[in-house]
């Protein structure tokens, strides 16, 4: 899913995919604006089920495994930081 876009656009493509997912699935955000640097935890209540969906989305879309110690409030707090984490994990696995 979207793997071609990711390869073409790199980080921009990753950010677009994550932004689209957060916007579509995060309950408090359906109408609010979302910038890549916004802290989604401050924008609205992040439920454990949303966070799990987000993790599964990231792993299946970008074909990475997020290790336990990467699952932190900081890494998941914004589209920008999630994009950085994915890019780093992809680089590490080649």
């Amino acid at each position: 899913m979207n793997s071609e876009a990711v390869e073409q656009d790199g980080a921009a493509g990753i950010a677009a995919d994550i932004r689209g997912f957060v916007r579509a699935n995060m309950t408090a955000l359906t109408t609010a604006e979302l910038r890549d640097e916004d802290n989604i935890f401050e924008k609205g209540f992040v439920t454990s089920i949303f966070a799990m969906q987000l993790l599964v989305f990231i792993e299946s879309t970008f074909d990475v495994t997020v290790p336990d110690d990467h699952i932190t409030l900081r890494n998941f707090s914004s589209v920008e930081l999630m994009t950085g984490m994915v890019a780093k994990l992809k680089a590490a696995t080649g």
Partner: protein
Amino acid sequence: MTETVDAARTATMAKCVVWDLDDTLWDGTLSSGDVVVLKPGVRELIAELDSRGILLSVASKNNHDDAMRKLEEFGLAEYFLYPQINWNSKSSAIAEIQRRLNIGMDTIMFIDDRAFERDEVVFAHPQVQTVDAADYLGLGSLPRLSPEVVTEDARRRRHMYLEDQRRTESELAHDGPRAEFLATLGMVFAISRAKDDDLLRLEELTKRTNQLNSTGITYSHEQLERLAHDPGHDLWVCELTDRYGSYGKIGMALVRREPESWTIKLLLMSCRTVSMGVGTVLLSFLIKRAAEDGVRLFADFRRTDRNRQMLLTYQLANFHVASSDGDDLRYENDLTVRQDYPDYIEVEIGE
């Protein structure tokens, strides 16, 4: 005080028995035009398993409407959740039932008269225990299907799943953001101190809950009774209710209180409430309370192959690993981040 914790893993209790129909539940083959007859004692067996809180379902290769009509005639249709009656493989039927009920594959048993079907299921799902239909009368005495205690929640279990089914149907029919749908449920999440008549249910929760469980450590009724009355511990129990009914007592938290610090020894939530996000609510409650009391907040966590979601719930609630020993983690929360409860859940705190 020292806790003697029953760390010994009890063999996993089964949660669901999936039945074949032809020559298993009844004698004869419906689609061949046979006059089918219930196997002797099967009706009593079904009612008995249901009363123990064991869920029942069907995986049968048959015409769906004909088989359902026959189950109705026998007065058994209401016992079976998400019956899979079609011409697909039994392994795909089991996968669908497992997904709908959201229970572990290793808690499912499958009974069929044909060795081929049993083998096909085990090939795809090695964790499923299969039973030859010839042995059906022995099901009632299998330890995996004989819980030591049957709680009120267990007796109502099938009805609670039926309520879930109606919720899911109205959710699918609802056109709009999920938050709006959740708001229509009128959810009330009640957190209160465990009372003596909650303890059997809490013991059961420690044994049945795998996914949303911070340690997987089980506690006996006696241990819970002692902890509930110990001033050095808080034992919290949670009940979730909405307009479709009560989910029952679906969560618990055990907190050890010391003068300067609290440790969450166990936090768990029934897997039936996974999609409601209530695990985060209970954790938020404990974080708020610890901050109000001015104590440091720690949590014990034991990583299993099943509880990644609980790990995520903790770590995204800003718990950091303070120390670790293999799969055993000790978290600390610096209490700098406090999240409010979501708008769609009313939280009631009872002391």
